């Protein structure tokens, strides 16, 4: 478990602010204890100080993961969010998209959301904004990037992509072996 380098911290926060904006502060500055980001084999874990101390008793070679995996750094040093981060992103996300029950499955199989599957969308969503995808009953099922603004969505044709797929809870089954 390494402390993230200056550059990597910046890359991570830049990505997180795309999804939850100023609320990243709430992840770092929590009233219920100190939480921090740690890196292990290019994967970033969000972990409480208390748990981190316990994890440090394990030999680094034998430790696979500790805390919640937020995502990983690619070989080109870009940060990619994993679905495991959804628990922390969903409550803070200012921009959300609700999908119709008929389109849920499509999304959970890793497809983009098209206009016909769009149930509701947060007002004034800008283009390329990170959004959390929810079912009509407010259960978060993944996240993506808005392909169109809210205004553009109204005039888009039914087959136009509204949200680019980033991660969905179907990955818990599809990529079971790579998620930590």
């Amino acid at each position, binding site marked *: 478990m390494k*402390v993230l380098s200056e550059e990597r*911290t910046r890359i991570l*926060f830049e990505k997180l602010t795309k999804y939850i904006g100023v609320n990243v502060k709430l992840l770092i500055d929590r009233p219920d204890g100190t939480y921090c980001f740690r890196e292990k084999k290019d994967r970033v874990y969000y972990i409480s100080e208390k748990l981190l101390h316990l994890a440090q008793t394990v030999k680094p070679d034998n430790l696979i993961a500790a805390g919640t995996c937020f995502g990983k750094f690619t070989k080109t*040093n870009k940060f990619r969010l994993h679905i495991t981060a959804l628990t922390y992103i969903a409550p803070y996300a200012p921009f959300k998209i609700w999908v119709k029950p008929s389109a849920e499955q499509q999304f959970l199989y890793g497809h983009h959301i098209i206009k016909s599957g769009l149930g509701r969308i947060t007002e004034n969503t800008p283009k390329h904004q990170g959004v959390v995808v929810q079912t009509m009953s407010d259960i978060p099922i993944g996240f993506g990037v808005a392909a169109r*603004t809210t205004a553009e969505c*109204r005039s888009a044709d039914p087959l136009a992509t509204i949200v680019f797929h980033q991660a969905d809870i179907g990955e818990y089954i599809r990529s079971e072996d790579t998620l930590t």
Partner: protein
Amino acid sequence: MEIVNEILDREQKKAEKYKPIIVDKHLEVEFDIGTLLAYDSNDLDTKLLNSNTDEYLQSLARDNTQLLLNKVWELPTERIEEAIVVRLPPPTTVLPRAKPVPKPRPLTKWEEFAKAKGINKKKKDKLQWDEQLQKWVPLFGFKKAAAEKEKNWLIEVPQNVDPMTDMYEKKASEKSEKVAKNELQRLKNIARARKVKIPRVGLPVTSDKASANQLATAATVAKASTASLGKFQDKLPKEKEARGKGVHELIPGKERKRKAPIPTPQAEKEHNLNVLDNILNKRPKIDMDKAVARHINTEQIQ
């Protein structure tokens, strides 16, 4: 009668002079005739051994030697130049070696890689049929060189190459470069086997074009090559430090840098909040996309 007695007497005296060749043993003595080895597993007579040690041991040694020689005499004998000789059978006893077993030669980098990947060396034929020359050409050697010369009496200059280039010279230089590279790798393998630290060679010299990665590395190295290790050098707006395998070692001052100590939770939090503030403040105050979207939105509502 006298003569007979005399002969018998003489024989008896003779027999007394020589010890008998038949030896009785409680347990059979084991032999390895190949190494002329006899192994007596009988118990020693402690009483005799204590009373007169030397004599007892001598007689024991004689008896066993006698048994061994009896065995040797059982083998077919030959006569070579007045001497009777025996051909000993191959030895059965395994003798331990005096020196330690030599260590296997350390593998070269390629051999290591091939072993990991399961690549086996394929045996090539020494001669190969050349369609163009209609004859068998060896894999290497003067006949191969002669064949090449015969084949390449003319080399076309490709479209993308300067028409005035000497293709023969180019080919020769390519070949010599390959030889030099092989030699370098050979030396590197030796250095690795002996665990000698090789001085770094810097950036690879490329005859043609450098890749983006090489250029980025060169720029980073050049920037850090000041007395203060590039600390006070200006930065371009979107400049990135070169990364990747083996790059870190090339940058001056990087290898000497110690690992930063793990910060206290409080300090880390503060630092993280600072970084975050920087990111949030960097965003433009007026987001044009957002403003336009809002404008369209208000228009549609009206």
